[in-house]
């Protein structure tokens, strides 16, 4: 009985990963089958034609996208409710700054907020940001990431419409070459699936 419980615990889905691009939505239910070999338990993809109704977009019609996401979740028979959404790399700003090593946390946060608002051309309360510090010898290196707050609100509305819990909003890695594959006409199924898995992995670690 204990072994069955441990096996069920290990096989329980950890997080949902979502990747959305122009005409395709990919949802992945990801779980850690052992710490060394995470794997995909279920995945599903929705594609829509540009000639049909006005194509749904995450950033302009979050409620409609949430309904589509909920249908996908049910159709695939998924169980997990924790959702990690990946934003396209071209919609975010990733920069680095250096501050003094003894800089207080609230001042560091204010600096990052100000830099992000300057980079995006928005007010300070219209940006969503996060940062990570590295402290080699000398001044403190801060890697920060920012995007318009409207994107985060759209992701929240979408997950609420799909009856899922938004746990993580990250950035899709640009090195996976989705754009290159799309431009070359090759099927983009595998890169987008990988991106969704990466989002799920990051969401499970956050």
């Amino acid at each position, binding site marked *: 009985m204990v072994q069955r419980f441990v096996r069920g615990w290990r096989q329980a889905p950890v997080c949902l990963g979502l990747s959305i691009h122009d005409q395709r939505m990919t949802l992945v239910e990801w779980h850690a089958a052992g710490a060394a070999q995470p794997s995909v338990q279920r995945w599903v993809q929705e594609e829509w034609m540009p000639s049909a109704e006005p194509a749904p977009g995450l950033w302009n019609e979050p409620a409609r996208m949430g309904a589509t996401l909920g249908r996908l979740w049910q159709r695939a028979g998924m169980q997990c409710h924790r959702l990690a959404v990946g934003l396209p790399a071209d919609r975010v700003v990733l920069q680095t700054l250096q501050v003094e090593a003894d800089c207080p946390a609230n001042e560091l946060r204010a600096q990052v907020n100000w830099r992000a608002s300057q980079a995006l051309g928005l007010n300070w309360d219209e940006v*969503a940001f*996060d940062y*990570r510090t590295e402290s080699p010898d000398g001044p403190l290196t801060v890697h920060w990431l920012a995007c318009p707050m409207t994107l985060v609100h759209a992701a929240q509305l979408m997950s609420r419409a799909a009856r899922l*819990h*938004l746990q*993580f*909003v*990250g*950035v899709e890695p640009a090195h996976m070459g989705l754009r290159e594959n799309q431009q070359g006409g090759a099927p983009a199924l595998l890169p987008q699936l990988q991106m969704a898995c990466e989002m799920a992995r990051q969401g499970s670690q956050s």
Partner: protein
Amino acid sequence: MTPMNLLPLRDRASVSRRWLVGSWLGLSALGGGGLVAWTLHAQDASKAHVQAEMASAQMQLDQLQLQLAQQRKLQLQAQQTHALWQQVQALRQRAQRLDALHKVTAQRWPAGVQVLEWRLDGAGWRLQGLADSGGAVQQLLQDLLPLGPWQQAPAVVELAATSVVSGSNARSLRYVVQARWQETELAPHARSPAPASAQPLTSVIK
């Protein structure tokens, strides 16, 4: 390394708060279940204890009832014995008084008073006989008086002259004397009912 999350801190807090609330509810349910199980267990234990005490008390009650029945039986036997002793004492006293009466009359007989018939009825008695004169009868009464205590003192009921036969030593007066001794009252339950055929004891002296 923890990935950067663009979700605002307050929303992340809500997620963690949701987890905390869920964990708290789970722990509460677990604790409640444990409490209920412990309460049921304690209830069963106390129920068994109460049942054992009830059985012990019932056993003691049975023993006490048995002892009470034995005591009542012994009390009844003691009461019967006491009544029998009282009856024996009364009979002994009556025998002593009759013996004294017999001695008194024997002293007077056949000089002046002759006893022809004794009639005994419990504590009462009646003498019938012949006497030479009324003075002899009066003397007999005087001699009988100290044999009390009396409920009805000795008294002459009948005194009449008789026909004298020539050549015999027949007396001239026929007398009847009766009296009743005072006896202690016997217990009601100790009195045995007199048989229907019981008659007063009568002795006729020829």
